[in-house]
């Protein structure tokens, strides 16, 4: 199970990093969200995985680690605030600059020639 979990985290990270390296704002926001999932899962798993052991005192014999859960809980909420901030910054950037490129301007010599661009 741990292997599968780590695999999921790895795939999420890969997808997130790839998307963050794109040149337009919206994919970058999506990438940040994906990376956010990966990081939250990663942090959560630092309390080790366990099943049927919610940290409710008296409900079971062994409890999962409550500390990473508390940290991740606030991280999820803050993550939302951050996503909202970035995406609205992207909107504002597009409104003020007229394009949605991450640098605020479309580079003159993009790595693609005009023919390749659709």
């Amino acid at each position: 199970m741990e292997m599968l979990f780590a695999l999921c985290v790895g795939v999420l990270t890969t997808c997130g990093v790839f998307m963050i390296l794109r040149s337009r704002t919206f994919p970058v926001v999506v990438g940040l969200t994906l990376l956010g999932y990966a990081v939250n899962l990663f942090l959560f798993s630092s309390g080790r995985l366990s099943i049927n052991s919610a940290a409710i005192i008296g409900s079971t014999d062994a409890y999962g680690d409550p500390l990473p859960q508390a940290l991740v809980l606030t991280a999820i909420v803050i993550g939302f605030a951050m996503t909202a901030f970035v995406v609205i910054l992207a909107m504002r950037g597009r409104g003020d600059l007229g394009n949605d490129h991450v640098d605020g301007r479309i580079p003159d010599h993009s790595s693609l020639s005009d023919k390749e661009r659709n």
Partner: protein
Amino acid sequence: MSLFWIPLLPALGVLAPLFSAKFGRTNCAFATAFAPALALLLMLFKAPAVFRGETLIATVEWVPALGMQLSFRLDGLAFLFALLILGIGLLIILYARYYLSSKDSMGKFYAYLMLFMTAMLGIVLSNNLIQLWMFWEMTSISSFLLISFWHNNTDGRKGARMALAVTGAGGLALLAGLILIGKIVGSYDLSIVLQSGDLIRGHSLYPVALVLVLLGAFTKSAQFPFHFWLPHAMAAPTPVSAYLHSATMVKAGIFLMARFYPALAGTELWVIIVTLTGLATLLLGAYTALFKHDLKGLLAYSTISHLGLITLLLGMGTELAAIAAIFHIINHATFKASLFMAAGIIDHETGTRDMRRLNGLWKFMPHTATLAMVAAASMAGVPLLNGFLSKEMFFAETLLQHTLGSLSWMIPVLATLAAVFSVAYSLRFIHDVFFNGEPVDLPKTPHEPPRYMKVPIEILVGLCLLVGLFPAFIVGGLLHSASLAVLGGEVPYYSLSIWHGFNLALVMSIVAMFLGVVIYHNRRKLFKFQSQFPETDAKLVFESVIQCIVRGSVRIQQFFENGSLQRYLFLLFVMVALFAAKPLLQLVTTTGDREQLPLNGVALVLAVILMFAAIATVIWHRQRYISLLTLSVVGLVVSVAFAYFSAPDLALTQLSVEVVTVILLMLALFFLPQQTPKESSPARVARDLGIAALIGGIFATLNYAIMTRSGVSISDFFIANSKPGGGGTNAVNVILVDFRGFDTFGEILVLGIAALGIFKLINRMKVSMPSGDLKGRNWTKDSHPMILRTVSQSLLPLALLVSAYIFLRGHNMPGGGFIAGLITAVAIILQYIAHGVDWIKPRLRINYQWAIAIGVLISAITGVGSWMFDKPFLTSWFDYFHLPWIGEFELASAIAFDLGVYITVVAATLLILANLGKLTTTHRPTVEEKR
């Protein structure tokens, strides 16, 4: 402790001229002179102890653990230098009183001068390496201010900048060298360092430390090839040149070599580097000085040459040579300071320093001429003057050394050659200026300067004579105690007398005198010869080197900082991969010994869905709506995973955040392009995929390695104390509102700030609203469908009830302020979607900004409330009560804190989403104009 007052008095004295400047120039000079005079007096009281060979030390500990202390020492060497600094400093103050014109700001000048004096005293009196360095840098900065005192003068600014750049760079090298020495010895205490000479010289890092320290000394003392800054510093007012280039600034480098003589000198490396540098500087300076038509230029190169002479003596490594070096430090300071002052007077009274125009001044200022001639004769090494004595000692030492093996005979020959030029330029100074016909086209008619302007020169020239006639009586004690400090032990016998008999050194002197006169006589031929060489302006060379460096760094900067976020992020990820991969490469076994959970089918299916959804998000990322849908699938599976792995709180949070995130991104996408153009070349895609996969692989490996190992965590404490200490059975919630309540408080603050920032960004945002989708279809006319309206309206009370329930049970069961807040926010957002802003606005009159503030305040007040019971911030309180019919119930202060969290979360979420939604309507937020 009175030792502290010696540097402290001039430091306090920096203020004196600033406050006294308005009381007239003479009063200002007196006020300025008071502090150094007092310091000098204080030091003279300590003279008997120093002359007995004692080392006085005063220390105040600052950070003992780091070896940081404020520590001063007064030994013979420090005494000698402090005497020169304070004594000549006082004369300079007097001289500058008459030199500066009424247009110059005297208060500022004296303040800089006192700052510089403090820094110099700090260097020579420091007993701590780092402290010494700090004062060293202070001299660079204060000398910059002094040299550029006439800041509307281009040459002054450029010269000052060059001096600062060269000596500042040397200062950095010195710092590195001193730190190395500190590491080798294990202490920055100078007393310990000076006793650890053998340890330092035997250490493998000795050559590095030596070269670094010498770089500091050579740049400061204008040794070849760093000598070029000194002539350009002549753009300074003459009192500054007289002070900086006779007794202080340039002598700081010499002082450094003398100070570290017991610790660093005596090796072959020292002898080779220091001797050859000194010799080259001596020759170059003496030769160039002859060809300078500017009076101060001649003196500048002569200073370089004499500094080279002292360096050469220190480099020879014999004890007598070191004594000769110290003796020459004294002599050079006296005659060079008086010569500079005389040059200043000539400049002041004639309006030029060009020796081709200055002729025959004897008739106009015989008094000044006599003084200058005596000083110049001392510079040339004429018998019965102090310059002669140290030059004789120098010649004698060059004859005794074996530095260059069988080529050692070259040193006395070259020394004599330098002395020949020295005689020639001294003669030129005398003959060209005071005799040699009539003055040519002078701006002013020269006359004698004010009476007191000559007093400093008279004192110094008097000293030249007295030392020349009665050397042992005047400077015997001073020289002995300074030599004791430099040699660190026994001082060999040396004789301070005028007549040593007819020996080879005297022959060298006589030859130098004779040839010097011959050369001066034939100077025109030499000038002609010299004029064939193109003259290089060091300023231009320096500027072009600086420009080169700037261009180079701009190029490097442009490579890394080209304004492309993708470039930065790529470099960042590469660095992450490098730093994370290194420890992982050293990890031999990835799998730890913790027992792993068995795999089951449901988990496998969910994981496959998650991975497919994530990959689909990437593949279809250009179709933004599709990628948003797949993204939400990922989020859902993540919340299921939290639920599955015993984290119900997280699952609830993730689920509700997922809803608001998707609504948010949907809204945002309405205003953004719905497709992403294809921009990346295949190579770029491959590169990005490569680094992404590498990072993903590293993350997964790290994650797996952590999960399969057991570790000790502080969580046992939270589990054990959740119920008895926090009064709740849901440990996660108790951590949030109680144990780590302060963190949570910070987090709701961040949430509130983010929401307010977003509100600000949304204000007056220019947006383009598409009238239809990509295929040109118009949006539906029925934007608020009937069914949705009805269902959402009936759902609202239910949803609020659920959130109230989740909030109240949060302390004991999964739930709490964060989750309840999100559920409430989602319920209200649903109303916005179903009914539109027009419908909501009259029904829900909440100012979300105020609500955020109220939420944060409630949490803060709950925290502060515990102060009333003398408990730390956010200490929680709880108790159990029994009410008839209802039964036992619990009341905890944490619930008030959680209420604050709840309100903040609701308000922040709604502030973001409701305002974003309003952009599509006529209710879009705009700033109320405040005028």
